[in-house]
């Protein structure tokens, strides 16, 4: 049975994000999720009409979870990294730096976790939204106003380190300041901080190398920083075939974002950043190990805190590390051992 256009349901949806569509995880909403959903819904006899409100038009980076949960947007990218208190398990990779920068692998693991660990799916449901797909990030690096060549040089520096990544500076003597990509440029330029911990792919779109031209790879790796979600009320109101369609689009979103992030990472490091006057510094492996081994047992302490909340932190750590090693990567620090 194919419904005629006259009695086809109309769905007015809003796609939203705190960041502008220059970053892959927003761009992919704009150029894949939105147009594909219209096309595929039409084939299913439905009509979807989108309002697109990116770049913080509806809420800022501190409120991506509330933004979708409260229904300001129906579909959007949620920055799990800013919600260590509401989405604790989603932040597992922030207590496991120096593991891997393989975006595609991390996205597959993120999907597996949301499939196998009911508490992770539930955390989104508790915030009135449905997990559609993963968003993972490439290597976090340091961008700095002044170059460094050892861990010691970090002492006393104020550094933008979003959410839980502030803990990665522990033991180095640097101080983490909370923030988000949109505020880094002004903040570094005017001296709030002397640099930032950012994923490589975040540097060029925000021109951060203009104010912090030293890009230092210390081997921190990447991880899970967000997800594509849909407001639960909206999701529940959709017919099953559209729910299925959005679930599939969520998976495609995750793959496409991973592909784009990896590609852009490479282009940034080999072409765009050097051409923009930035200097890329690879910290030697022995300094990287010093940094990684100097960190306290972040994952262990985190698993303890999760246990107090009745959450299976250790299980998530193990599953992630197993996934990384099974994917052929060699972590600088093995947090489950």
């Amino acid at each position, binding site marked *: 049975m194919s419904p005629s256009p006259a009695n086809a349901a109309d769905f007015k949806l809003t796609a939203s994000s705190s960041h502008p569509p220059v970053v892959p995880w927003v761009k992919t909403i704009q150029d894949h999720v939105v147009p594909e959903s219209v096309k595929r819904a039409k084939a299913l006899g439905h009509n979807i009409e989108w309002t697109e409100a990116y770049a913080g038009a509806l809420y800022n980076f501190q409120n991506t979870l509330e933004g979708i949960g409260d229904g300001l947007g129906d579909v959007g990218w949620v920055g799990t990294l800013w919600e260590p208190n509401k989405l604790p398990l989603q932040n597992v990779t922030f207590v496991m730096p120096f593991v891997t920068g393989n975006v595609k692998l991390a996205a597959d693991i993120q999907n597996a976790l949301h499939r196998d660990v009911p508490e992770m799916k539930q955390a989104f449901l508790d915030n009135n939204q449905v997990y559609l797909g993963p968003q993972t990030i490439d290597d976090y690096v340091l961008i700095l106003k002044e170059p460094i060549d050892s861990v010691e040089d970090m002492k006393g520096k104020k550094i933008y380190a979003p959410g839980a990544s502030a803990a990665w500076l522990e033991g180095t003597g640097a101080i983490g300041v909370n923030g988000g990509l949109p505020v880094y440029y002004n903040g570094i*330029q005017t001296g709030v901080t002397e640099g930032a911990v950012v994923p490589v792919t975040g540097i060029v779109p925000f021109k951060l190398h203009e104010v912090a031209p030293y890009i230092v790879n210390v081997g921190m790796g990447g991880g899970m920083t967000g997800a594509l979600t849909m407001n639960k009320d909206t999701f529940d109101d959709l017919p099953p075939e559209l729910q299925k369609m959005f679930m599939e689009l969520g998976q495609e979103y995750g793959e496409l974002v991973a592909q784009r992030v990896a590609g852009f990472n490479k282009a940034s490091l080999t072409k765009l950043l050097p051409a923009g006057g930035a200097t890329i510094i690879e910290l030697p492996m022995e300094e990287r190990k010093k940094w990684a081994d100097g960190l306290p047992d972040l994952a262990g302490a985190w698993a303890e805190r999760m246990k107090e909340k009745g959450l299976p932190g250790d299980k998530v750590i193990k599953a992630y590390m197993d996934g990384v090693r099974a994917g052929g990567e060699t972590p600088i620090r093995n947090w489950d051992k």
Partner: protein
Amino acid sequence: MSASDGSSVNEEGGAIGVYRRLANLFVQLTSICNSAGTIWVFGLMFLICADIIARAGFSAPIRGVTELVGYSLIGAVFLQLAHSLHVGRFSRAEMYIEPLTKKRPITAQLFHMIFSAGGVFVFGLIAFGTISKFEEAWPDLKFGVEGDFTILVWPLRLIILIGATMVAVKYLSLLIDHAIELRQAIKRRQAQDNKEPLGLYHLLIMVGLFAGGWYVANGDFSRVEIGLFSLAGMLVVIFMGIHIGIGLILLGFAGIWMMMGTPKIAINTVKLASNEFLRSFFFGVIPLFVLMGLVINESDVGGDTFKVARWALRKIKGGLGVATVLANAIFAAITGSSIASAAVFTKIAAPHMIRHGYTPTFAVGTVAGSSVLGMLIPPSLLLIIYGFVAEQSVGLLFLAAVIPGIILAFAMGISIIAMAYFWPSYVGQPDDSEEVDLKVGEALQMVLPIIILVAAVLGGIYGGFFTPVEAGAVGAAGALIIALVKRRLTWPKLWKVLLETGHTTVSVLFLILAANIYGKMLALSGLPQFASSSIGGAEVSFFWFMVFYIVLVIILGMFLDSVSIMLIVLPLVLPIVLSFGGDLIWFGIVTVIAVEMGLLTPPLGIAVYVVRSTITDASITLNQIFRGAFPYVVIMLAVTILLIAFPQLSLALLN
């Protein structure tokens, strides 16, 4: 008067008496909360300065200052809102409602009651939304990161809840006050032999507004159309004289409801914005720069500056007029508000010029006219607010304003000299021969406090030592030290300054919050994109767009205050400027100077009002000051055109 009349008045008096006592008690409560918020913000200054010292001196920055400042600001704002409303600091357009209150009191009181009900609704809504935010935060939700710096969320949410409730109650009290006045107005009319007209037909505006809203809500309109209707409705609502912040939130709320077809998202937008939007370190710049300007006013730096300017220009025809401009330009480098400049130089410069043979019209006009430099030459409250709305660096905006500020000051100075020669009927027959006997060293010493402050504040920003927020804290602390050294600051004066800082900050931040909610409605409607694409399609050139924009701003400037104009217009206009490829820093400078013309134009010209309320000579009328300031409006328009034609004038220093 009959006996029965008398007894009914007594009964009324009893009920009203009880209400008045309760209302007074409530005002005392708001005053206590206001003081708490005031002290809280003052404490931030010390915290930020301590952080700078710890960071620069000991390489040991204090953890969590950034988070604490944002947290504190929103808390302090909600503690102070009710009292700010009580002392009348919520801005509104008075052009319609004020005359109506005099001529048709009965109808006007009905308007006031409806406006107050709007206030009860808006703050009731904020309080209602905050309940769920409080429940979410209770008992252990935190901001920040465990191990680095965390702070409990629920105390802040509780403060917002209590603060919003207090404002709702205050609006309810205003509603009752107006009901009492309505009753008295009806009584007065009953006693009139020749009854004054009721003027109830004015209420047709209100009926039309509600009918229009009903029609739009129930019709089948696109989001862009709803956005357009809300824009038209906003103009009507604001010009009627509702508090502008309340009007913006009401229309934003109604617009989102209509577009989404459910109130839920509209409620959530208001809830989220009022709980989260102001929680930003960067908003700290507002109270700190306001505090700096107000403290420096108390230390008579303005008087010294004027003396030095007189001395420097003593040999020039029209020298005293030019000296007023020069003193204003120098003073502008340490004050962020034109209101401060207008008040200071009305006391110092105007009587002096009149004594020396300038016409009173020219004297007061020059004081009002040159005061606009206060908000063009950095630091500037308007540039700071523009920076928030357009997401541009405040530091870059300040830098960009330097050359335009100097150009405007020069244009004013040269015009005064020219007018002194060619238009004596306006300027008068000045005798500038007075002796100010200063040596270069003395003169330098008198402007030394300004030099120090400018070096610390602007030097600090551009030297990369600290952010604009931190510069504000350093400037405020520096101003305090100068005032203390000059023995100008007493405890009562300091307290007055702090209260004034609080009220200014709160009224501005509430407007920014309201505009943010309204801006979200506009973003959701897609109106800005629609406007850009239709302007693009109509092949309107950027030049004609700018002409249209300046005219619009000048017209709005006749009726509204500067901050409101920017917050109302910018969300719609900025995307269009971007679509033309316009530079947003340059556009900010042009906007600020165009908006500032409104300070000098009737019927609502804030700078002119300030001059009038500060001047001791009662014979000088408002009209006279408006006339005297008009040449300066023309000069500003000319400079605006110059800045539009040559964007390099604003952008040269940035490269």
